[in-house]
């Protein structure tokens, strides 16, 4: 009976080719940290704070209007600003 030597090829696969190299060297040195908290996860997307000082009469007025129409202050602002922009466009 013929004697065969065991055939052994390389046990490791071929190394990757140069053209499949990724783009890690384009990544910034300091990995950017993504701060995620409850506020940034809000479904409304309202993540920025806008604070301003107003006159007392305006303060009372907008608070009462919002409460009466079951709106948030931000909704009064958004809707009011939208109307203002539309009015400016018409002029």
């Amino acid at each position, binding site marked *: 009976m013929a004697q065969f030597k065991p055939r052994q090829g*390389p*046990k*490791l*696969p*071929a*190394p*990757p*080719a*140069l053209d*499949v*190299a*990724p*783009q*890690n*060297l*384009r*990544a*910034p*040195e*300091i*990995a950017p940290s993504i701060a995620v908290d409850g506020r940034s996860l809000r479904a409304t997307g309202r993540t920025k704070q806008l604070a301003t000082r107003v006159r007392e009469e305006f303060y009372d007025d907008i608070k009462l209007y919002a409460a009466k129409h079951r709106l948030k202050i931000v909704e009064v602002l958004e809707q009011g600003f939208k109307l203002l922009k539309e009015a400016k466009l018409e002029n």
Partner: protein
Amino acid sequence: MGAIIGFVSQKGGVGKSTLARGIGREAAAGGLSVKIADLDVQQGTSVNWYRRRLEAGIEPIFSVESFKTAAQALKLARQFDYLIIDGPARASAATLEIARAATLIVQPTGSSVDDLEPAVLTFHELVRDGISRNILVFALSRVGTDAEEIEARAYIKQAGYAVLDGSIQERPAYRQASNVGLSITETRYPQLNKRADALIQAMVDRTDGTV
């Protein structure tokens, strides 16, 4: 200007700090001025190791410092015979910056495909960005058997890169030495110290040949 040796990798735990500390210790023992720049501010592996070394009163002492960016560390190159950069376990723009300034870039790797493949890809990226293959070398670490080492060497050679002579075997004694602030050439076992010294000598020869 002194030599700059950068230890880089895409993965953690491959032996960057171990080898950086080893060559730092040997260069200091040889009377050279040495700075190890630890670029992993969060982990500070080499800085913490050096604190243990100082607390234990081990000689020789040299300088190990933490840096947030590669640029900060590279500014010091003129002040030392050897600036050894212990890079973070992540390839980034800083890896390229280190490679552009370095005399030698050493990438330690284990001998499994899980380690070898990302390591080769990191060097491929550097080559694609214009870094000469002549300054890029692999150092085999955490090697289990001679057969494993032979296969890893063949893999790296096929990828077109050089591998330093010698290797760091997977031995608890190296970790035990590190735990108390000793380097890989300062273990309790002369044979292990000799093996580590051979690898470090290969790094030195390579550095001197390319300066």
